[in-house]
C-alpha cells in the first residue's frame, strides 16, 4: 500500500523543469544546418533574460536607447 501511495504521489507530482545543465545534456541536437551541433537550448535564454549578442551581431556594441 505504502508503495502504491508512493507511486501515486510520484505520478501526481509534475516533472520539475530541468536545470540548465541538465537540459543541455539531454536535449537533442537541433538541426541548424550548420557545423555547430550544440543543442539549441544551450544558447537559448531563460524566460526574462535578454538574449546574448552573438559574434555576428553587428550592433552588439551600440549604445542603449533610454
Amino acid at each position, binding site marked *: 500500500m505504502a508503495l502504491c501511495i508512493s507511486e501515486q504521489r510520484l505520478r501526481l507530482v509534475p516533472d520539475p523543469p530541468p536545470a540548465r545543465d541538465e537540459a543541455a545534456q539531454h536535449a537533442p541536437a537541433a538541426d541548424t544546418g550548420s557545423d555547430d551541433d550544440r543543442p539549441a537550448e544551450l544558447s537559448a535564454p531563460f524566460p526574462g533574460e535578454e538574449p546574448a549578442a552573438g559574434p555576428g551581431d553587428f*550592433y552588439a556594441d*551600440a549604445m*542603449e*536607447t*533610454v
Partner: protein
Amino acid sequence: VTTPLRPAERAYTLSTRHGWNEFVTAPPRQRPELLSAAQIRKLPEAARLEYEERRSVWHANIGPLRTPQMRAVHEDLDDIVEANRQDGDRVKGAAVIDAYPGLGKSTIAQVFARGFHQRQVSLYGPVTGAGHDRVPVVHVCLTSSTSKRSFNAMLCRFFGLPGHDRGNAEELGHKAADAVLACDVRLCVVDDVHFLDPRRRDGRDVANHFKYLANTFPVTFIYVGVGLERRGLVSEGLAAGEEELAQNARRWTTLGVDPFEIETEPGRQTWRQLLLAIEKDLVLAGTHPGMVADDLADYLFARSTGALRLADDADHPRLPRAIRTGTEQLTRDLLDQVRNDAAAEAARQELLAAFDAGKLRARPATAGPRSAVPSAMAAAG
C-alpha cells in the same frame, strides 16, 4: 472609407504637469517595419504616404542614447539628490549642467528627471498622504524676459493652478510654494538659465529667488544652461553688487558635458558605439551594416565637430530627404546637400581636410576593415 492616420508626434510641452506626465509615461514608439525598395514601390499611394509618415516621425525621435557623458552626469546628479535628503529646514545643494549648445544637456536632465519621477511614483504611489496628485518633478524653461514674478507664474502654470498669471511676485510665489509642498515635489529642473543676466537687477532677483527656494523647500534644483560660469551665475569672483550670488556658487555643483573626441582609441570606440546605435534604428531600405558607423564615421565627426547631438539627434533633418529622394541611404553626397549649422561649418572644412589627408580618423582600430556589403534590400529593389 479609410480611417485617417493619427498624428504620431507627441505634441506635449514639458512646462506643464500634464505634458510632463505624458513624457514620463509615454510608451516606447513602435519601430516601423523595414520594407525593401521593391515593397515600398508596390504599396498603394495612401499606404506609401502612411509608411513614409511613420518613418519620418520615427527618425525624428531616435534616441536619446545613454552616452558616457549622460552616465557621468546622472551619477553626479544621483549623488546630489541623495545628499539632499535632509529635512526641509536644511539648506540644499543644487546641480548646474553647464555646457555648450548641441551636447544634449537638456536631454540629459530630462532623462534623469523622468527616471526620478518614475521611481518616486513607484515607491510612494501616485497620490500623496494628503490625497493630492504626487508630482515628483517640476520642469520650467526660462525666457529672455524672466523676472521673479514670471518665474513664479511659470511654476503656477506648471501645476495648472487657476489664476496662474494673476497677482504679484509674492502672491504667485505663495501659490507655487503651496503646490510644491502639497504635491511632494522633490526635483525642479530649470532649463535655459543662460537667459538670466546677473548684471541686470531682474536677473539677480531670480538667481536670489533660487537661493530662497532651495532654502525653503525639500527640493533639489537642477539648472541647465550655456556658459553659466562665464556669465557669473556660478562663480565666486563677482563684481560689486553681485556678492549675494556667491552663496549660490558655493552651494551649486557644476557638471559639464564634454563633446565626443577621437584623439584616443577609447574615444573612437565611443564614437562608433554612438553611430552604431543610430544606424541600428534607421528604417531605410538601402541601409547596410556600416552605412553610418563605418562609412560616415569621419564625415559625421567633421560635420558636427564632435558635438553631434546624437543623444537625441540623428542628423535627422537629413533622413526625410533620404526617403523623399528615394535613395533610402545616408551618404556623404546626400548630407552635403543639407546646410550645416554655421558654427560647425568652418570647423568641418578643417577636420575634413585632416581626415582626407589621413592625419585623423574617427573609426577605432578594432572596427576592422570598412564594410563593402551592398544592401541586399536595395539590390532586391
